[in-house]
């Protein structure tokens, strides 16, 4: 049929009305298929609804993918074991775009539109800080997996918790005894010149001093820098340990140039795996880190003494012995951090059970029940290790791993005590009204 009639052109003719009506009806039926009915039924079975504030797009997407995998794996196990208080757990994922304003919107959607019981899972600090006021105003418990010091600083609000991963202040402080005792007492720090670097700049020196070591140089690198050779002459010659926490796309360049600067005659190097999280440490350019040490929250590589719980956790999430996705060796996980999702979900479960949580009306009881938690034992629910929870500052404390790059793997050479990472509380959330 020619397309120059009616709506297509001048003459009106063509399909009969009957054919046309049949076509329209068929299309409508296709669009309103059985999915709608089943969706409506799903609403009445009343699962526990956990709003997952996920970095699915934006700068945090690489981490968000692994946070999602870990979350899915944990929820599958929780549900297979009967759920929480006899109810299945449903994860509702909303993308925050790794943006603080969108983060706050997403929290509001969880509380309003989705009638979620709690909000969970945020990593990036600026999103946590942007979302926390919304959680406080809407009185919805907000469990983050961020490693930032924001929750523990007690400058957020009573609805914010970080019960599944230690904060950066604790992590840095816990490194000091081992560094001073094993690699050297004269430390030079190289860090990016902004907040992330300042955490290390501010927390490490006093911790090292307490161990009889000292920071003899602090080199702040402008964040826009993508070549570093001209900064290296600033490293004092008597440096025994170079403490580096560079981040961003130029990290590989940083390591390569450092290797070219020092050759084989290098000081001891100590870094945080944050620099190379989700990056294969055997990538070209990283040869220089062989034999150096890194902090790891949870070990990327399977260790010879892994507990059964650790093995089960790795299998459930789907990472191989090298910490990459099973069957996709190039997809290196964010192993040092993502365990926090798993453990946080089990903390939520425990707190809901303690509170006898039934629904949103019990959210305040859930906050108090979470605050009442004190410790978590290593096991299937806490595969990274034992934890101590401080209900006053809503922050968990745990063991840290120090790993050495050996034979192309990260091998854990030291595990800190929980006490190494404890510090004086800076406030008390429990005195705030609910």
């Amino acid at each position, binding site marked *: 049929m020619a397309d120059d009639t009616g*709506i297509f052109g001048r003459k009106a003719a063509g399909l009969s009305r009957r054919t*046309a009506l049949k076509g329209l009806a068929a299309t409508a039926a296709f*669009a309103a298929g059985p999915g709608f009915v*089943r969706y409506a039924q799903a609403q009445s079975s009343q699962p526990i609804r956990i709003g997952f504030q996920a970095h699915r797009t934006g700068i945090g997407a690489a981490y968000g993918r692994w946070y999602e995998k870990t979350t899915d794996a944990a929820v599958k196990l929780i549900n297979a074991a009967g759920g929480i208080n006899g109810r299945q757990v449903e994860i509702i994922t909303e993308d925050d775009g790794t943006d603080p304003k969108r983060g706050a919107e997403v929290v509001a959607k969880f509380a309003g539109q989705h009638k979620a019981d709690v909000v969970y899972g945020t990593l990036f*600090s*600026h999103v946590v800080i942007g979302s926390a006021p919304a959680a406080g105003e809407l009185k919805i418990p907000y469990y983050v997996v961020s490693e930032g010091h924001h929750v523990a600083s007690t400058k957020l609000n009573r609805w914010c918790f970080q019960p599944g991963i230690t904060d950066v202040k604790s992590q840095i402080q816990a490194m000091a005894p081992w560094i001073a005792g094993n690699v050297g007492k004269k430390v030079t720090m190289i860090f990016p010149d902004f907040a992330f670097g300042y955490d290390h700049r501010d927390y490490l020196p006093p911790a090292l001093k307490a161990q009889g070591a000292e920071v003899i140089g602090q080199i702040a690198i402008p964040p826009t820098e993508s070549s570093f050779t001209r900064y290296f002459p600033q490293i004092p010659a008597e440096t025994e340990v170079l403490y580096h926490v560079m*981040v961003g*796309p130029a990290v590989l360049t940083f390591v390569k140039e450092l290797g070219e600067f020092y050759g084989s005659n290098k000081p001891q190097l100590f870094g945080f795996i944050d620099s190379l999280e989700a990056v294969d440490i055997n990538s070209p350019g990283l040869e220089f880190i062989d034999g150096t040490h890194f902090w790891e929250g949870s070990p990327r590589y399977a260790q010879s003494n892994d507990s059964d719980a650790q093995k089960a956790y790795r299998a459930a999430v789907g990472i191989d012995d090298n910490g990459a996705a099973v069957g996709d060796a190039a997809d290196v996980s964010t192993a040092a951090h993502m365990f926090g999702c798993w453990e946080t979900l089990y903390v939520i479960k425990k707190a809901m059970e303690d509170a006898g949580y039934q629904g949103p009306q019990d959210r305040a009881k859930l906050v108090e029940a979470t605050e009442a938690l004190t410790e978590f034992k290593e096991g299937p629910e806490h595969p990274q290790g034992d934890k101590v929870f401080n209900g006053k500052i809503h922050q968990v404390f745990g063991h840290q791993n120090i790993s050495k790059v050996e034979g192309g793997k990260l091998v854990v050479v030291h595990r800190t005590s929980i006490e190494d990472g404890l510090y004086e509380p800076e406030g008390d959330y429990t005195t705030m009204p609910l």
Partner: protein
Amino acid sequence: MASAIAAVVSIIPSSAFAHAADRGHVLLLPTGHYLAAGAAAVAASFLLLGFVRPGTLRAVLDRRLRLPFGLPGVRLLLSLISFALTMLLVAAGFFGSRDPLSNPLPLFFWTLLWVGLTLAQGALGNLWAAINPWYGPCRLVRPFVGTPALRLPRRTGYWPAVLGLAGMAWFELIDLAPDDPSRLATVVLAYWLTTFAGIALFGYVRWLGRCEFLSAFLGMVARFGIVDAGGRRLALCFPGARLQSVAPLPLSGTLLILLALASVTFDGLSRTFFWLGLNGINPLDFPGRSAMTVINSLGLAGAFVALAAAFLMAVWAGLRLSADPTPPLRAAGLLVWSLVPIALGYLFAHYLTLLLVNGQYALVAMSDPFSLGWNLFGTAHWNVEAGIVMGHEAAWVIWNLQSGAIILAHVVAVSVAHALADRLRPADGRLLAGQLPLGILMVLYTVMGLWLLSSPTGA
């Protein structure tokens, strides 16, 4: 509340996870050599073409390989399926998973349609004409609606499409949550209805040809494809060959192509350390889209104005150098077609990784559009292999594909421009001089394209 947040941000030290992968590997590659080689290749092509008469080039480009079959008459069926799929995806956007990587709508729209289909159009031809979701419904309702009530004034040109594409680019690059399923579903549904109303008022051919930006833009891109459906039987031709018979575009059409190229270019630029540093944004601590709304809106507009000005000036200067009496806007409307391969090259290079990874997510999401545990096509439990674009080996392969596409696109663009110049009227002996300004612009654009793909990014 914003000030309260800002105060807290300033007090509390934060952790940062600026990612080292992907671009980090590229930073270690000898990308500078590629920039130099790319510029040299495009410049050399330009000079070599100087020895080839445009008429000779056109004769080569006019060659066709006839195929023994024509287009099957399934357009109505395809469009109805496409319409049903569109509505299904809109429904999924409203009622399916809230996760933009599980919900099929954002994946189909941004990855398969906006990137995948545009590339397919450029490679093959006007697939969109057969699968657009308006044709079928229009055929169905034709018996019930009369002849279009209004006539579209000629001066309307492609301006509605320019506005539409500008809105789309802004939504994609600057809006806070273009991947949010229900937000996107609202936009898609509203756009479908608006277009349908436009067709009812002004007629299918007029509205889709010039006002509906997807059809207008995809139709232009399709002129580059190798399938010539002009005759009764299909024929194959060289890429870009069908650009020889194009009519010069009006200014609005010229700007439509320039806008498409500018938006992809700006998408690349807006992520670089350079752009972030220029605007006082710490590239290792990217604050998120909400902090970039004004900056990037101005940047997108600025990129468009800068590209349009550079192109129009190059065309004008070329006419002056060759003492060509062709009106400048007419020449621009003709030569702008040579930017189509560049836009395609940029699109391919820029979205290659997105296509490889989100394409997989789309296949998975398709099997369970409403997150109800369905497995319609057996792909619901496929493992998405993100590793395909990760690590230094992938980075090397992808960088070579990207730079190859950018360089090739510009070489083709130079050739197309040369052949199109046959339709201008340069003074004797000044043909090459007339093409020099545009040639220089293309060399510069090659270098910029490669630089955008090789410089550090923080967003």
